[in-house]
């Protein structure tokens, strides 16, 4: 070119230096590429990655205890676990359980804790039915002292401190928040009730219980608070407040609505408050320390309990320990899953290698024809193949019929080939075989046949030529196929469910069982997370060996 004498920076057509112009163009290109990817990336993140993250979160999440019985959890914090908790804890449990029973959430907590200690479910269920009666005693007592205590509007005025009184907005919003956590929803709008600041100072328990009642009445029952008589628990709370000597003194100086009735009640003889006795009377299991220990152990919002459970361990007072022999099922199941996946992978190698070899070494036309025999099963619906194996393997099935017809097996001693490990391994080997053959085939295609001939011409026997020359070159294909088959096998659900019976099932069947039947979602999530970790490690290895970009579909 003639302009080599120019010494300044090379300029683009618009006068900017070429370097900057190029950088700008590249940036624009980069942004365009990202803009093209972004919709899909967001889609996958929302529709797929978020669910996986949610599952991982659920495997450690344990907020149900703290959300259902928050005050008890608080009281139990200082409990040493040596003896049955004192009256304070039982009172907290009464108020917690009352609200939970109204919201019908106590049974959920019961079944959650039942995973850790059987018996907890019925404990919560039976006691939940009795909490009304525990409070009834106080309701009747107050009614006798003054009929005003049986009036909805009287309670409303008393607790709100009358029109124009200074309100305690924090208390009511705390109770709404608590109800939201309990019901796992969000509420918006105004309850139509704010506890009076003065009365909630004098009667803290009553104010809290009434605020909880008000929030529940407004949001869950969708009623007007001032028209509803308060719960038995509110009366019980009032009794608890009046038990304090200081309350009577404070009431003397109080002149809000209902002050007279309150003073009257404070002076009267009230039934003794013994929640501990009432609970033990409702269900004697409340006096068992180990039940309280379970509640305390599982009170934090996050727990390793599910993971420990998934590896056959449990939390005890002495720390983490293995479960007793007859309760260890997951270790066995993981071992079985591993063993069967390995067996399937191995069978696939044994059956796939000759087929891949012959496909790679036949002339193209014949190989393409035979390839159909590999691709047709690959493309056929999984359910079709599984049902085919069910048809073939059952005792009155095709294989047994043929064997009986040939006289190899007596009619009365037909082989049991289904609903056991054998059935699962055979069916899954068939289903996953194409995934082994295709990668092997694509590797073997690249091995020049001349190498084998060269080895033989140098005096190698057939076996030596194969073992020393051909086989080492085909190992990448075996590796790729094996990892692929193993990854697929380890997470299989449908086929083991149908042909596996009880002894031929995988860990995935157990996960499905916990999701849909036992409803122990946390344990299902923990088992899933362990399985996911195994698969991701294998996937990482696959990526190192083969590379994700080299995944081929359908040959």
């Amino acid at each position: 070119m003639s302009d080599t004498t120019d010494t300044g920076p090379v300029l683009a057509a618009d006068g900017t230096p070429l370097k900057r112009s190029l950088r700008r163009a590249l940036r624009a290109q980069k942004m365009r590429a990202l803009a093209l990817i972004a919709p899909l990336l967001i889609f996958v993140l929302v529709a797929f990655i978020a669910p996986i993250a949610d599952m991982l979160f659920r495997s450690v999440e344990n907020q149900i205890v703290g959300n259902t019985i928050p005050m008890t959890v608080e009281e139990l914090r200082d409990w040493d676990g040596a003896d049955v908790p004192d009256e304070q804890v039982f009172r907290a449990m009464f108020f917690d359980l009352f609200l939970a029973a109204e919201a019908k959430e106590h049974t959920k907590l019961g079944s959650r804790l039942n995973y850790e200690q059987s018996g907890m479910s019925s404990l919560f269920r039976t006691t939940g039915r009795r909490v009304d009666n525990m409070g009834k005693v106080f309701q009747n007592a107050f009614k006798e002292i003054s009929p005003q205590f049986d009036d909805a509007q009287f309670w409303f005025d008393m607790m709100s401190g009358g029109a124009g009184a200074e309100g305690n907005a924090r208390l009511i919003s705390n109770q709404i928040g608590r109800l939201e956590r309990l019901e796992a929803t969000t509420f918006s709008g105004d309850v139509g009730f704010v506890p009076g600041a003065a009365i909630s100072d004098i009667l803290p328990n009553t104010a809290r219980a009434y605020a909880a009642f008000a929030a529940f009445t407004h949001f869950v029952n969708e009623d007007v608070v001032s028209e509803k008589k308060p719960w038995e628990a509110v009366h019980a709370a009032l009794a608890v407040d009046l038990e304090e000597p200081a309350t009577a003194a404070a009431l003397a100086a109080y002149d809000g609505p209902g002050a007279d009735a309150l003073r009257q009640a404070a002076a009267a003889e009230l039934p003794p408050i013994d929640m501990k006795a009432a609970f033990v009377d409702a269900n004697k299991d409340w006096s068992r320390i180990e039940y309280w220990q379970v509640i305390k152990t599982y009170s934090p919002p996050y727990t390793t309990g599910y993971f420990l459970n998934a590896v056959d361990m449990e939390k005890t007072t002495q720390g983490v320990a293995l479960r007793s022999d007859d309760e260890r099922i997951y270790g066995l199941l993981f071992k079985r899953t591993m063993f069967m996946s390995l067996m399937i992978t191995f069978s696939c190698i044994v059956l796939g290698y000759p087929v891949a070899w012959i496909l790679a070494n036949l002339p193209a036309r014949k190989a393409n024809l035979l390839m159909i025999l590999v691709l047709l099963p690959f493309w056929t619906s999984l359910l079709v193949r599984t049902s085919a194996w069910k048809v073939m393997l059952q005792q009155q099935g095709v294989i047994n019929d043929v064997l009986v017809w040939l006289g190899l097996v007596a009619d009365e001693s037909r082989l049991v080939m289904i609903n056991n490990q054998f059935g699962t391994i055979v069916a899954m080997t068939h289903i996953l075989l194409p995934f082994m053959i295709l990668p092997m085939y694509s590797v073997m295609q690249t091995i020049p046949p001349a190498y084998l001939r060269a080895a033989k011409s140098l005096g190698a026997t057939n076996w030596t030529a194969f073992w020393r020359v051909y086989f080492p070159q085909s190992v990448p294909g075996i590796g790729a196929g094996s990892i692929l088959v193993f990854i697929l096998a380890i997470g299989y659900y449908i086929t083991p469910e149908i042909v596996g019976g009880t002894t031929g099932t995988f860990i995935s069947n157990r996960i499905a069982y916990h999701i849909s039947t036992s409803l122990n979602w946390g344990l299902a999530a923990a088992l899933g997370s362990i399985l996911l970790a195994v698969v991701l490690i294998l996937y990482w290895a696959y990526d190192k060996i083969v590379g994700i970009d080299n995944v081929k579909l359908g040959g």
Partner: protein
Amino acid sequence: MSAMTLTPIEKKPLSFALPTICAAGGFAGLFVGTAHGSGLIGVVVGAVVLMVLGYIALQILGPGMERPVRWGIIALFTVAGVLLAGVPGFVLGGLFGWFFAFFVYWIGEGRYRANLAPYLTGGQVLWHYAFRVICGAIFVFLITPILVVMPLSFNAQNFFTFTPEMLRFDPAGYSLKHYQDFFTSSGWQQALRNSLAIAPVATLLSVSFGTLAAIGLSSEHVPFRRAIMAILISPMIVPLIISAAGMYFFYSRIGLQGTYFGVVLAHAALGIPFVIITVTATLVGFDRSLTRAAASMGANPVTTFFRVQMPLILPGVISGGLFAFITSFDEVVVVLFVGSANQQTLPWRMFTGLREQISPTILAVATILVGISVLLLITLEMLRRRSERLRGMSPG
């Protein structure tokens, strides 16, 4: 290829041919014998019959009479088959006869050597054919389950196995009643409608998003390409049961569990990796200078995309779409958890049917599905050829 012979064929001595044929006959006789009471008699009869036949064919009549002798052997075996086992025996006898008629001359005339290198030892020849027999057996293993399902779906009885009537080829043993059941049962039809309502929409979602993203990913200037790729491929890697569990938990949190939209969303996510992989693979062969040429002639990016790029990568897009479609159409684990009874798809109904073993209608459905997969296979093969042709046309 096959016309060319590597080794000139020569007649084998009877001392080699007759014992081989005799052993084959004995082996076949073993099965026929055990089926009729005594394996030993079967072996002896099979061996003697084949020895005699071989001797007549090879020694007395010679290769000049090959054609009539072959037909004779087939006829003989067919008659024997009918006498032993009726109509099924006719078919089996015919097959045996055809095989032995071929086998006698194949061994006796030394034809088995024709396509093999002349220096191979006897052992190597034996291994060569033994290996092919092993491979044949594996192919049989691969294809039998699918082939067995088809005739069983025409069973007149509600059995999952061949009835004696079917084996006798009695027309009364066959019927289309399971197909009729499938086409008239409201449950199955609803399942089919659900499948057809979910799969195409899920496919459309994954193909449109996936193609755009694949084009973006094929640019050289994408940051974090590996990480993005790993995320996009992950639905294929994560075991279905884990995806299903996660989606069940998460979708029920956001109110999508048990809805049509939730199932479509889940299936679209599962189909995306297939679209990404196939379209990216097609784009590797795409000549980027074509887009630049289009741009230099004044086409805007949208026109360039639809008039230049899209027609060239269309085969990849369609085959990715087919993969996505079959993924959704075939999928059962995720829909089992994410869907509700209103979204019961065909595979779901098959799954519950298999678990509770209701009726062989499942086999009729299975046969129809095999037909669909054959169609898909053919379409994909045609697309692959077209794509290769297109790529061959574009320079570079």
